[in-house]
């Protein structure tokens, strides 16, 4: 039984185009879809390709319905819902893979393309990186090309691709205008990205042995800084994170002290202005350079001198700060904080306590006590290593007198313990130390592997003074970075220990590109928008004004493109225009319409046979037109044509 072809029958030759669309829009989603779903999608698309190759009929409707119901149920079981982002995307991707199975008509194909455009948008829920952007541009081109193929008939793929690219290029001005001027809200429009609330690597809230050395293996970028002036030396770059003053014998955590005013910080050297772009870490601390003097509006200084954002940082954010590395802070520290900075567990680590008590008797000066501890670390063959032996109950004693090898948290923790036991208020500061200057774009990059822990002691008359006990054992840690400080052979992330110069250059370049993308594309937030607009003297524009400006610019762009297109169009000569107008007028008067391919004389005879009353006029006009357009150019033919065209009865003439 052969059915008559429907008027919008889908050509066999356009099927591979549509399958390519399905693959290119669905493929990136398989990265985060459950395996069984990815498998079904792959199998469905492969099957469809096979059916196309073998020219076999598509599966029956009931079978498809069954598959759709079963897989939808599967999605429900997997996600426990059919709504929301993840299950929604899963369903859409699934439909994208199944829809080709019932692709008989052009209408089905259009559904696939529209679904494709929508599905493309959902990729931004998961990734906004440059490769994703490039992939999506390619996919949009493919989808557009497929539309052209569907409605434009068979043409070589190169011609279609060029046409699609041309169309997209024409959309470019609108894209730019919309990007720059569309009123922005903070954060993505669709709500928070999935990974915002899940755990992100970053400094821990509590410090126990091993908690920082875990981070050292992570090469991910923590934040980037751009200094307004020249970057200070690496050895003063202490980026302040959580401060901990309560010790339970094993781990350090911030003591609960209630709300208190922040201490006075007085800069002694010149202040350093910088801009910090923080990767989301789900915590409030901003990792300001020690010690912060000026904070952005939406941040406050805590009583422990931390720069804290109002909300946990869940999106990549930019802050402008000012710090001084030479400062005096907390000269008049509150009693509560000082006593919290002396707290120790009731028992444990007796040998360390004895040692400290001895120092306390020997010296009255806290600085001398601190020097004593540093001297101890330096002289007693202490080893700086990422893989220290495990410690038991009296961890401080064990470290001090037995294992003698550890990482920065061991040294900081032991040092603070000793200080407190000797009656000097002390606490642990976690954060990052150092950074890497990227010569390509001038940003300093701080990675998770730069995580560090150091100590602060309080001295009457001088306030809080930073003491980095790690510097006593491994001075190169502070001067040259982690890779130089660790012994050869210890595992480190590849990123932190690169010796090959070209590889390092390549990495610098790639990071600079990524950073530009982050700063200018992803980080284009309301502030940046305002900043840009104020550069054009539109500083205090509200969203209404912005929308008006947007519409005006879009209109302008449209006008520009129209003018350009008209300019590009082969300019028809006067004779041709006159003839076309004449034919249109004739058609309005009930004569047959001229086909686009029809020559003047042929059209004249056709009109004359249908409307003999126009016969003379049209014959004469056609002859004049033929002469003017195709004849040997002579000046008289054009006026004759105008005259002939004017012979039409005047009633409906508009020109």
């Amino acid at each position, binding site marked *: 039984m052969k059915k008559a072809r429907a008027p919008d029958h889908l050509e066999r030759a356009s099927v591979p185009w549509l399958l390519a669309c399905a693959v290119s829009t669905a493929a990136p989603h398989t990265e985060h879809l459950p395996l069984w779903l990815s498998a079904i999608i792959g199998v469905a698309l492969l099957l469809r390709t096979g059916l196309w190759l073998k020219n076999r009929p598509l599966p029956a409707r009931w079978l498809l319905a069954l598959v759709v119901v079963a897989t939808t149920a599967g999605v429900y079981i997997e996600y426990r819902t059919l709504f929301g982002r993840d299950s929604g995307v899963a369903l859409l991707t699934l439909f994208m893979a199944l829809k080709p199975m019932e692709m008989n008509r052009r209408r089905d194909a259009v559904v696939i393309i529209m679904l494709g455009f929508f599905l493309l948008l959902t990729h931004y829920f998961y990734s906004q990186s440059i490769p994703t952007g490039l992939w999506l541009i390619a996919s949009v081109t493919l989808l557009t090309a497929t539309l052209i193929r569907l409605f434009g008939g*068979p*043409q*070589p793929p190169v011609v279609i691709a060029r046409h699609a690219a041309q169309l997209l290029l024409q959309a470019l001005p609108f894209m730019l205008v919309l990007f720059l001027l569309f009123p922005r809200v903070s954060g993505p429009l669709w709500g928070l990205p999935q990974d915002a609330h899940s755990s992100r690597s970053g400094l821990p809230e509590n410090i126990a042995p091993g908690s920082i050395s875990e981070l050292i293996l992570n090469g991910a970028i923590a934040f980037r800084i751009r200094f307004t002036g020249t970057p200070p030396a690496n050895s003063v770059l202490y980026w302040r994170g959580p401060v901990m003053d309560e010790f339970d014998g094993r781990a350090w955590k911030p003591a609960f002290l209630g709300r208190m005013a922040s201490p006075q910080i007085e800069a002694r050297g010149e202040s350093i202005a910088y801009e910090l772009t923080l990767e989301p870490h789900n915590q409030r601390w901003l990792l300001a350079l020690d010690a912060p003097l000026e904070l952005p509006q939406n941040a406050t200084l805590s009583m422990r001198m931390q720069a804290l954002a109002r909300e946990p940082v869940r999106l990549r954010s930019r802050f402008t700060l000012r710090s001084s590395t030479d400062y005096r802070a907390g000269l008049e520290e509150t009693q509560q904080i000082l006593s919290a900075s002396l707290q120790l567990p009731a028992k444990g680590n007796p040998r360390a306590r004895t040692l400290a008590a001895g120092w306390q008797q020997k010296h009255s000066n806290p600085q001398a006590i601190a020097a004593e501890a540093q001297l101890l670390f330096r002289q007693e063959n202490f080893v700086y290593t990422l893989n220290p032996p495990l410690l038991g109950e009296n961890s401080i004693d064990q470290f001090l007198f037995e294992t003698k090898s550890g990482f920065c948290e061991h040294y900081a923790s032991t040092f603070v313990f000793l200080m407190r036991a000797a009656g000097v208020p002390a606490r642990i500061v976690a954060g990052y130390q150092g950074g890497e200057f990227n010569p390509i774009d001038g940003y300093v990059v701080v990675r998770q592997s730069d995580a560090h822990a150091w100590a602060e002691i309080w001295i009457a008359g001088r306030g809080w003074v930073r003491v980095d006990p790690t510097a006593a054992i491994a001075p190169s840690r502070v001067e040259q970075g982690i890779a130089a400080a660790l012994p050869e052979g210890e595992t480190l992330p590849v990123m932190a220990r690169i010796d090959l110069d070209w590889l390092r250059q390549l990495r610098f370049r790639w990071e600079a590109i990524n950073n530009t993308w982050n700063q200018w594309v992803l980080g284009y937030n309301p502030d940046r928008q305002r900043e840009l607009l104020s550069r054009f003297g539109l500083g205090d524009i509200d969203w209404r004004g912005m929308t008006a400006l947007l519409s005006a610019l879009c209109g302008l762009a449209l006008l520009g493109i129209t003018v350009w297109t008209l300019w590009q169009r*082969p300019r028809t*000569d006067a004779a*041709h225009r006159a003839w076309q107008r004449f034919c249109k007028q004739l058609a309005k008067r009930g004569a047959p319409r001229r*086909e*686009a*391919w*029809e*020559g*003047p*004389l*042929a059209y004249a005879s056709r009109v004359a046979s249908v409307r003999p009353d126009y016969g003379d006029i049209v014959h004469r006009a056609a002859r004049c037109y*033929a*002469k003017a*357009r*195709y*004849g*040997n*150019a002579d000046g008289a033919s054009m006026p004759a044509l105008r005259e002939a065209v004017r012979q039409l009865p005047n009633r409906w003439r508009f020109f």
Partner: protein
Amino acid sequence: MSDSRTPLTEAIAAAGNIILGKERQIRLALACLLARGHLLIEDLPGVGKTTLAHTLAQLLGLHFSRIQFTSDLLPADIVGASIYDREQSTFRFLPGPIFSQLVLADEINRATPKTQSALLEAMEERQVTAEGETRPLPDPFFVIATQNPSHQIGTFALPESQLDRFLMRIDLGYPDRNAERALLAGGNTRERLATLQAILGPAQLKPLQASSAAIHAAPALIDYVQLLVEETRRDPRFVHGLSPRAALALLSAARAWAFIDGRDMVLPEDVQAVFGSVAAHRLRLAQGSGHANPEDLATIIQRTPLP
């Protein structure tokens, strides 16, 4: 100018009296001759292919010869051969039937490729090389070849490159009812043919060919020819599009058509009128065997708007 064309109109009218109801084909054949091209007529036996060739030769006063192609025909049978003249004791070249102003090559696809190519070379070069000596062919030199549809038994299909040497291919088709009735009722065609008077001579034909070639083709028209040719190259139904040579052929055939029509410039209508005859035998279909038919070319015309 209209004076010089009068004999053409007369010739068309006179030929119309012999070959009934085929004015379009007569015009096309004449246009082909004016454009200095050769003509291929493809149709079933008995529809008047030979009569058309004969009539044209008669009316134009051309020296006419006919070669019946058979499978055992040799190149020498066409070109001629040297024979020994006993009286003068030398070899004397005896020109073959190709040394005529109008040659009718009947059923050309019955001959072997070797013989076919002897004729086709002569058509292209307008000269013949026999026994080391090159001899020019008469001027005008016009070949009308006929061939039976290639699916008939015992035929050698002409290769592409040789088909290209025919400016046009036309088919005659069955006459319509009235024409056939007139044919049946009328007297013996052969007798009437014999009584035909020449309207032109070779001497008049040459200036006519020259003025046909001088017909004006405006830039807009050349644009149109280019668009048509490009459209055939884009069309997936054909293996290849039209060659530049085919584009030239299309333009000169359109010029001749415009000339016969009494105009001094080529119009798109002229191009459209000859397009089917000039292009169809040069476009091989991608699917199946054989060449494009008039409907394929009509869609090309209808897809190409006038610039």
